[in-house]
């Protein structure tokens, strides 16, 4: 498989499968958009949890945060401090290190 990267935005994958040569062009901007983490969500916006590392999932569940839940970012502490998010009526503070490992998708802009 070849990977040709033209810029930080486009990557081309070339690979053979069943004797057919495939060429896939990926727009990384699209991928990045789909792989947002909680840190990228602006204050006041809502997002849906899409994927979280298994170990972290267990910890989050204890605070009522499950994959698939809708969370709203309420506040951000200054100077690299934690985020305050609301989910299922509970408010939870998440350190930045944690928030970066929580992947989300942003819902319709009207929220």
């Amino acid at each position: 498989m070849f990977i040709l990267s033209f810029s930080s935005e486009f990557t081309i994958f070339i690979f053979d499968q069943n004797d057919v040569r495939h060429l896939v062009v990926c727009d990384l901007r699209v991928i990045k958009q789909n792989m947002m983490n909680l840190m990228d969500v602006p204050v006041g916006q809502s997002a849906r949890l899409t994927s979280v590392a298994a170990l972290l999932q267990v910890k989050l569940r204890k605070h009522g945060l499950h994959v698939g839940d809708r969370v709203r970012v309420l506040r951000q502490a200054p100077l690299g401090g934690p985020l305050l998010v609301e989910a299922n009526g509970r408010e939870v503070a998440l350190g930045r290190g944690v928030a970066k490992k929580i992947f989300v998708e942003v819902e319709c802009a009207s929220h």
Partner: protein
Amino acid sequence: MRVALIGPPNCGKSTLFNQVAGYKAETGNFHGTTVTFTESRVRVAGEIIELVDLPGTYTLEGGSPAEEEAARYLASHDVDVIISVVDATHLAAGLELTLELLPLKKPLLLALNMMDEAVYAGLRIDGQGLSQRLGIPVLPVVASKGRGVKRLFLKCLELGRNGQVEGERYAGEIQEMAVRHAFARELVQIHVKQGERRYTWRDRLDDVLLHPIWGYVVLSVVLFLFFQMVYGIGKLIEPPLLALFELLMPVVVVLFSEGTILSEVVLGGIQGIAAGAAIVLPYLFPFLFGLGFLEDIGYLPRIAFLMDALMHRIGLHGKAIVPFILGYGCNVPAVMSTRTLEEPRDRYLAAMLATLVPCAARLVVVFGLVAFYLGPFAALGLYLFNMLVIAVTGRTLSNMMPEDTPGFIMEVPPYRMPTWRNMLSKSWFRMREFIVEAWPLLIVGSMILAVLDYFNLTFLLNSMLRPITWIMGLPAETGVALIFGIFRKELSLVMLGQALGTMNFDAVLTSTQMLVYATFVMFYMPCLATLAVLKRELGMKAMLVIAGLTVIIALTSSLLMGGIAAIL
């Protein structure tokens, strides 16, 4: 009849328990204050109920000690009725646990606690619908005000007498955690009408208290008032208390022939008791009470939120701020409070750093020596220097102990009005730990000191410590005061006066020597009581490592302070 209370952390279980049983369970607006269960006998409508308060838990199958404890208890004991307590404003979380309890086939009640807050939040909960769907009675209560509690227990008695599970229980598939979560959310969607989620007073308060600038201003003011209150009350109570012991001592000494070893030891013992009383009653109690207030009202998690960024710089996270605040009062409860941290690494680091925080006894040394002779700004400078040393130590140590933890996750609860009952019982709980763990050591330590003094072993101690005192450029006589300081920190000032033969320190010490001495006292060796608690919380090895490290830190920083003083 045995009735078990179970529910998620912070749902008001313990408040409900205390409402019925008196002052036994420790409650707080923070996570996991109930670690083991409390049992109490209560009389309801002529019948005796054994009421059990289980540790707060979200599920019975999680791995934490609290969860295992709760699951084990429900499985092993003959529990007649289970009351599942849920916070009505966080219904989904509580319902998940309730669903997990359904298959136990025991009489089960759902208590919707904090209904008043739910009403404020604009939630309308259809209890009847919920009850029909689940097949168990659902009752509203406001535990903090005692509303609905009687009705709850009468119903409970009725269920317990029947002994049978009445009605048709929900029998859907609820084995998997994910399924329960989804079902609980569905139940909430159907049975709870969310009126406008308004911009509540909580949000308004948080806008100020968690504000990037005002939040810290308020925090500084709150902490300032807090320490003012503690020292204000302490100063009011301590002198008459000590005067009382001064009166007592000659009376006791008369019983033994004066000047013998026996009378010296007895005197030492009384001095230990007096020192404990002078710390515990005037300072520690207001300290713990004030902290309990901040905790119950819900401010402590907000402090953790605000301080998280700063604490990260020294390799810890926001929750670890509590040992630091406590440390300024006494290192013993500070080390104990590291228990609330989940990761062993965090507990170790926080305990280590908390022992470097100058406690009230070391404040005596700093004030008596530095503030008195060199002015308040020198004392303030020393405190700032102390914070700097803690920060550098934290950074260095955390680099050596890389973090493999998922980081900071902490629930921020709503504000609640604290009750006197809860705050008093909690302060008592924590104070009892000091009385049981630390006070006896203070007394024994004082007795040992009396023996050392009696046999005039001070010369030996001085020469033993000579290498250290020589490096720092201090007179040899300071050695004995430093040894005594390990027993009780304030003795490093009292004994200094005795060793040097005068309390007029500026006649015998240069200002640099005073600064160096105060700096060394600030950091070296946790006191005997703190060492004992370190051993209990972290083990013998950790205690020795921490003790050794503090000596190294003390030496380095006092040499540094000597250099700074020479330049200024």
